[in-house]
């Protein structure tokens, strides 16, 4: 579908091959077709087992289910009912995060959990902010253009139609987008709050263009999904069903077409047939703590940048003694985060940044390499609206405690916050390995080491100066800075050859012909855009390749030919 011009917006445009918005209920947030969900026997091989019910796994399952594939998704966390399980409260959102122990280290250890790791059906998108910018065409050829990092074995143009399909399904709301490959969005821009309009004003004074959106939040009725109510708790799970997550955008349709989700099931190993080297299915521990095995003709691992490498590394065998896809010691390497420093600013009047979606306006004016800045690649700018606990972390970051802490906290309603996403480099030593520490299943947990390189530090420093300048021009009376990181991608890099990546351009693990990885871990570089949209887009593309049998059929088992 091509979207031309901005006059066709909102409810006039609905996705063709995804009935999810109509399978939801207007008044109840839970999925309505669970009583019709398929139940496959563990004694029979299904066509595909997907590990992880997030942006990658649910998207690929929904697409292939429509082509007749019989699919089981294993998800470590619960099957959410937003009415019953989610709250309009910061601390109460803790169950949405992957909070099992992981060990962090390196020169710049990355805090996990709440910040970047989801659990449960819907994955991290249940608590992502909602920003869904596209990657730029340049993101796929960084090595060629800038001489750093990697080129992707696929290009922006291989994904353009996937971006458009997904944007219509979420649906994405925003102004016409002038950066990267210019495009429009299916829903018009949301109104912006006072807190964001101050940032807009400061940016304009600096000659920086901003745009409203792009956010995957309904701006108008979309099937049975209601309009956003601007309550500001996007990061705590949307109780409205206005903000997109695959739980509501793709899973209802997937279930209607025969996908089974087994919640509370932790995948422990991808099993291999030693003679052929093919995957035979996935071993897991179910909600009762029983060890189970689901045979399958193909397996797709969609556990994100920490758990996907961990599962492959834990799946050792005589044939693959260092784990699956790891003959060249690449599994778990090149894990990336984005430099996400935030600068808060104080104004004479009340702004009450807790209202409206935290993501409101953004700019990609600094996205591409500009040699005069002295580093490769760039960053994007966005507004955010921290709630009180998060705000306390901004104050704590500058070392305030006691009466000083309380004073800044009491001043909450006068503040607003700008954030950046700096593209940081993929480095071999920024990696996930297995720790000596084990989890409740007796499996080694992930050990994640991370250190910044010189280019990263320059990028973050420059981006921070831009934020400072915007606030100065906006007339801020005081500022507070917090250095932080956002998002997680990489770890099972897509490459041109087995020496260059864990998977090929069709997401197939080089060494295991019927094992695929479909999540953010396959990204060779991370751009300066939030990863959610691209994770869904690459999964959409993979499903297209598999369903159209453009991935060599000889390598996929006979029962996949339907």
């Amino acid at each position, binding site marked *: 579908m091509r979207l031309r011009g901005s006059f066709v917006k909102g409810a006039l445009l609905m996705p063709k091959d995804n009935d999810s918005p109509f399978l939801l209920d207007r008044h109840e947030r839970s999925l309505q077709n669970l009583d019709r969900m398929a139940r496959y026997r563990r004694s029979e091989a299904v066509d595909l087992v997907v590990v992880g019910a997030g942006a990658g796994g649910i998207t690929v399952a929904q697409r292939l289910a429509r082509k007749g594939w019989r699919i089981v998704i294993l998800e470590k966390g619960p099957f959410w009912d937003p009415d019953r399980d989610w709250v309009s409260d910061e601390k109460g959102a803790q169950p949405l995060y992957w909070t099992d122990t*992981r060990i*962090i280290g390196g020169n710049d250890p990355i805090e996990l959990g709440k910040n970047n790791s989801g659990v449960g059906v819907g994955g991290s998108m249940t608590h992502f902010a909602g920003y869904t910018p596209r990657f730029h065409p340049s993101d796929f050829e960084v090595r060629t253009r800038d001489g750093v990092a990697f080129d992707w074995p696929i290009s922006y143009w291989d994904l353009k139609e996937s971006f458009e399909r997904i944007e219509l399904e979420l649906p994405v709301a925003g102004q016409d987008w002038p950066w990267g490959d210019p495009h429009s969005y299916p829903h018009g821009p949301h109104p912006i709050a006072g807190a964001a309009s101050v940032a807009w004003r400061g940016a304009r004074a600096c000659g920086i263009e901003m745009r409203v959106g792009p956010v995957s939040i309904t701006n108008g009725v979309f099937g049975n999904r209601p309009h956003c109510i601007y309550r500001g708790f996007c990061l705590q799970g949307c109780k409205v069903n206005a903000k997109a997550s695959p739980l509501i955008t793709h899973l209802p349709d997937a279930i209607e077409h025969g996908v089974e989700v087994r919640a509370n099931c932790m995948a422990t190993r991808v099993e291999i047939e030693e003679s052929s080297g093919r995957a035979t299915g996935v071993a897991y521990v179910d909600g009762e703590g029983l060890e189970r095995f689901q045979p399958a003709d193909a397996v797709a691992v969609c556990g994100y940048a920490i758990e996907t490498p961990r599962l492959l590394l834990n799946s050792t065998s005589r044939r693959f003694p260092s784990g699956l896809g790891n003959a060249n010691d690449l599994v778990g390497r090149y894990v990336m985060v984005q430099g996400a420093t935030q600068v808060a600013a104080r104004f*004479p009047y009340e702004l009450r940044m807790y209202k409206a979606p935290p993501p409101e306006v953004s700019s990609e004016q600094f996205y591409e390499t500009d040699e005069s800045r002295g580093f490769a690649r760039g960053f994007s700018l966005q507004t955010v609206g921290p709630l009180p606990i998060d705000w306390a972390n901004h104050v704590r970051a500058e070392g305030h405690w006691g009466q000083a802490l309380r*004073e800044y906290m009491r001043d909450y309603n006068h503040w607003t916050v700008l954030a950046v996403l700096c593209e940081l480099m993929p480095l071999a030593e920024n990696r996930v390995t297995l720790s000596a520490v084990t989890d409740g299943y007796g499996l080694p947990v992930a050990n994640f080491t991370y250190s910044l390189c010189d280019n990263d530090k320059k990028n973050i420093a420059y981006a921070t100066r831009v934020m400072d300048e915007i606030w100065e021009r906006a007339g801020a009376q005081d500022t507070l800075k917090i250095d932080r990181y956002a998002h997680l991608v990489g770890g099972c890099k897509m490459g041109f050859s087995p020496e260059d990546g864990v998977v090929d351009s069709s997401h197939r693990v080089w060494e295991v012909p019927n094992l695929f990885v479909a999540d953010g871990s396959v990204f060779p570089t991370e751009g300066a855009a939030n990863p959610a949209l691209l994770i869904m887009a690459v999964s959409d593309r993979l499903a297209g390749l598999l369903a159209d049998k453009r991935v060599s059929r000889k390598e996929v088992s006979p029962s996949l030919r339907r």
Partner: protein
Amino acid sequence: MSVLPFDFAEAHHLPKRRLPEQALADPYELPRQRRGITPQMHGRYPDYDVLEQQEHWDEVTRRLVLARVTDVPPIRWFETAELETLTVFADLYLAQDSEPRIPVMAFVDEKLFKGELDGYRYFDMPDDGETWRIVARGLDEEARRRGAERFPLLGVDDQLDVVRRFANGELHGGAWNTLNVSRAWSVVTRHVLEQFYSHPWAWNEIGFGGPAYPRGYSRFGSPHLEGAERETWEGKEAYGVDPVVDTQERGLE
């Protein structure tokens, strides 16, 4: 220039905007809370009580939030002596120097007792529960070095000095040698702030709107529209208030 005590359009009260020789603004000069409760009963929104909005909250959220006020969890993780030491520490950290106080350590205790982790642990740190116990031991050891048997028995100036040195990562020896002191500060302050600012009394103090489902917001602000940043039920900040209009509005005439 004379500065009105409650002129929040100016930023003179903010710690980074104060002159080097100037002490922090005294919170006891702020208005006393007239409706609802704030920690120490001072705040910027004297007539705002977020709990009065509870009928507009969804049932699941209401139960969760009200329990923080009505059902303070029992102590199950810490030993009595540990709890005493850590409560003094947490209250100094939060400047809770008089009643009413939010019982933050009861909520920290609940989190640790239930084994609720945050999803990461630094390679050079024990787990979070153990970190808290080591901090309690370290604070008591520091008190003994200063001639008091335990941290709660130390004079308040000495206590504040210990907290300052903890914040700066300057505590050494004994318990402090078994972990990374700066990261320990990060763990305990993160936990304390999570509990304090999830309590509705703290929301009253800072004028936060609280749970917002299913009502949502229709007035979310524009600096160009007078009053458009605030729903009618949201608290007014205590400055620039015309006493005649104010008493009329509150029906005090």
